[in-house]
């Protein structure tokens, strides 16, 4: 039978600098990707139609994908078939609900669903979403500093959570995933999730008896199980919900997978190196 045992890394072999270098380099790279994206497209992440405004229409027809693409006056952003049915999902930047409805009807398509957002509404939603993430992050940071009441361990948690959001954002650009309500929900969930394993690690190292490495390993046994369990659940959810074409869930799942994988690295390399430095050198100062 397959065994799931959390391996014990040999941390002694690496210096704090070496440990922190990889996550910090990746964080820097991610920031670079976001900055480059911002310079090229005017936004750090490409917003989806929920934030730019536009229409998503799901139609049932026996026509082919090419025929569907040509049936509308506008150039569709994408035409995706829904697996296991004769349906297509067409997205476009056009927010003229009435025109799109009548074009679909005159082409003989059955409208299964249609959703239109005006550009101004989308822009408002985007501002709110970003504000929500920012407020959530600041609130979380304040809480962490209050809970641990010491600078370096708190900073380790906050920095790791920051990286857990930034790297998935960069990955979204690389994989062509647009910012949607699902990915915003995932980014918010990441703030909560990523902090779980960090708090656990800090708590074991700072507030428990036992040697540094013993405490670390004990925290890792629980923490890695937590994260790996979530990753497996979200991977499965991504596959199933993409096949089923359920809105919201695939974006949410894939961004969470990105974030949780990144969190494993950040927690047990960056956060750990900062804690080790704090425990052996920082406190002594």
């Amino acid at each position: 039978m397959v065994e799931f045992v959390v391996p014990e890394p040999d941390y002694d072999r690496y210096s704090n600098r070496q440990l922190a270098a990889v996550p910090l380099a990746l964080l820097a790279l991610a920031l670079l990707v976001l900055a480059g994206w911002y310079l090229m497209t005017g936004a750090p992440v490409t917003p989806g139609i929920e934030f730019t405004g536009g229409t998503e229409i799901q139609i049932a027809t026996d026509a082919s994908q090419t025929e569907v693409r040509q049936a509308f006056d506008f150039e569709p952003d994408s035409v995706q078939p829904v697996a296991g049915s004769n349906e297509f999902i067409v997205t476009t930047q056009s927010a003229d609900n009435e025109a799109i409805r009548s074009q679909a009807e005159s082409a003989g398509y059955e409208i299964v669903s249609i959703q239109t957002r005006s550009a101004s509404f989308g822009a408002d939603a985007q501002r709110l979403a970003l504000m929500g993430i920012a407020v959530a992050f600041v609130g979380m940071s304040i809480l962490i500093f209050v809970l641990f009441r010491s600078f370096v361990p708190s900073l380790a948690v906050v920095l790791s959570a920051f990286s857990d959001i930034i790297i998935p954002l960069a990955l979204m650009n690389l994989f062509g995933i647009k910012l949607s309500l699902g990915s915003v929900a995932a980014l918010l969930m990441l703030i909560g999730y990523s902090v779980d394993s960090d708090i656990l690690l800090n708590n074991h190292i700072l507030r428990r008896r036992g040697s540094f490495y013993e405490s670390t390993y004990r925290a890792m046994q629980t923490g890695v199980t937590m994260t790996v369990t979530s990753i497996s659940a979200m991977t499965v959810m991504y596959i199933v919900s993409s096949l089923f074409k359920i809105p919201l869930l695939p974006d949410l799942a894939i961004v969470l997978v990105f974030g949780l994988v990144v969190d494993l690295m950040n927690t047990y390399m960056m956060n750990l190196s900062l804690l080790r430095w704090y425990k052996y050198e920082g406190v002594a100062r």
Partner: protein
Amino acid sequence: MNLRDNWRIIMLTVFVLASTFALFGPASAPDADVNNSSSVGASTDPTNLKYGLELAGGSRIRAPLVGTTAENLDIEQDNRADIRSTVASEMDVGGGDVNVRLNTENGDAVEVLERNVSEQRLRAALEAAGVGTEDATVRSGVTGETRQQTVETIQAKINRGGLSGGTVTDQRSATGDHFVVVDVPNANTTQVLDLIGDQGEVRVVAHYPVSGDNGTEYRNQTVLTNRQLERSQIGVADTDRNGRPMVPITLQEEDAQNYSQALVDTGFTSSEATGGQRCRYREQPSDSGYCLYTVLDGEIVYAASLNSNLAESIESGEFEKAPTFQMQTTSMDEAQSLQVNLRAGALPTELATDEGTVLFLQQSLGDRFKSRALLTGLIAWLAVSGMVFLRYKNPRVALPMLMTAAAEVYILLGFAAAIGLPLNLSYIAGFIAVIGTGVDDLLIIADEILNEGEIATGRVFQNRFRKAFWVIGAAAVTTIIAMSPLAFLSLGDLQGFAIVTIVGVLIGVLVTRPAYGDVLRNLMLNQQQRE
């Protein structure tokens, strides 16, 4: 089993039972008032759960109201009428499109219910009306009073237009903008927009020839305003003796007097108007003779002569004693829509649908999302189960853990059923977030209690439990803080997700997850004793 030691398990049991009652018991209170819940319980669904549009199908229109409002003005009660007419003429809009409202949340206000009103022009018009605008703030949107009236009128139209179960609410976004949200299950967008997309203002206009110096010219005079029609008694759309569709209307006494006077003055009761110069709008719109137009939102929807019997009864004064007449239409559908417009009244202002969102979903697609989302959730739960079994191998640890995670979702569903929360896809994302944090916490509790192989009892157990709880509590508070901006800022679509996550984390931390600690201790002690 010691009750005092196991009070957490008892509490969990009570919550599960309460959820069962909420989910499967006799339908609870929110069901009684269908108009106030934005969903319909599918008849095939054995539970009391309510589903929102994304899972039940239907139409949602969310849009701001057309208008521009100047606030923080200082207006004397007596000058209201003057200001209204001056602003209307300065802005070149109808008098009905300007309102002067005193003592709103932001001082006195003047609103112009038209599209594309420039701030500059409104300020200039106010200055011209003698209202100082130095301290005034001008924003797009309408006053709270108008918004309230509009919401009530839309609700009335939806109820009377035969779209059952529709709800209308006023939603405020975090940026301070207001949106009117109209949810109608089992209706498509066209049906809803036909009913409420326009203001639905009905007037009766007399169109008649006057011979002047340059030959015959036509004049228009409104003989029945929307206000007069709204306060009269509107009958049920029906067909008259000749099988033509119509709506019977009984005017108020005073309105009847004015109406008949106006018709007599304009010559509609003359033998010419009911004879040789009868309305021939359909054949010759430019030279139509004596026509009474039924005007809906500025468009002529019907034109007819005054019925000769009615003309006689107006001349003789009979009409004023029993002021009932029939407003004719070309089709029964039109008669019904006219009846709705007259009974519910005109909207004070239009919905700016091009600045909002429009959603339509077939019920079958909603059903598909429902079953598939449930299946997705189950598969994700199985993935979690697999990992937990691989990690602990002992079913005494793993089984209760999975049961607890399931109980958490069950209680949350019970909560949703009890308060009549209409479930949407974003709520399902919330359930997933709750299971996620739940399993994390259960792992922390299990590892803490099983620490070093010894099963703790008494004070040691309490101590370890408290240690685990510190981490869980801290993580829970972080999650709640992360979600609260969305829950309280009212970001529409993600609000449900945030609320479910917060409630779920609270139920988890206060009820289910602590109970797991007790269950685990009991089971492990049993195992030890047997060994």
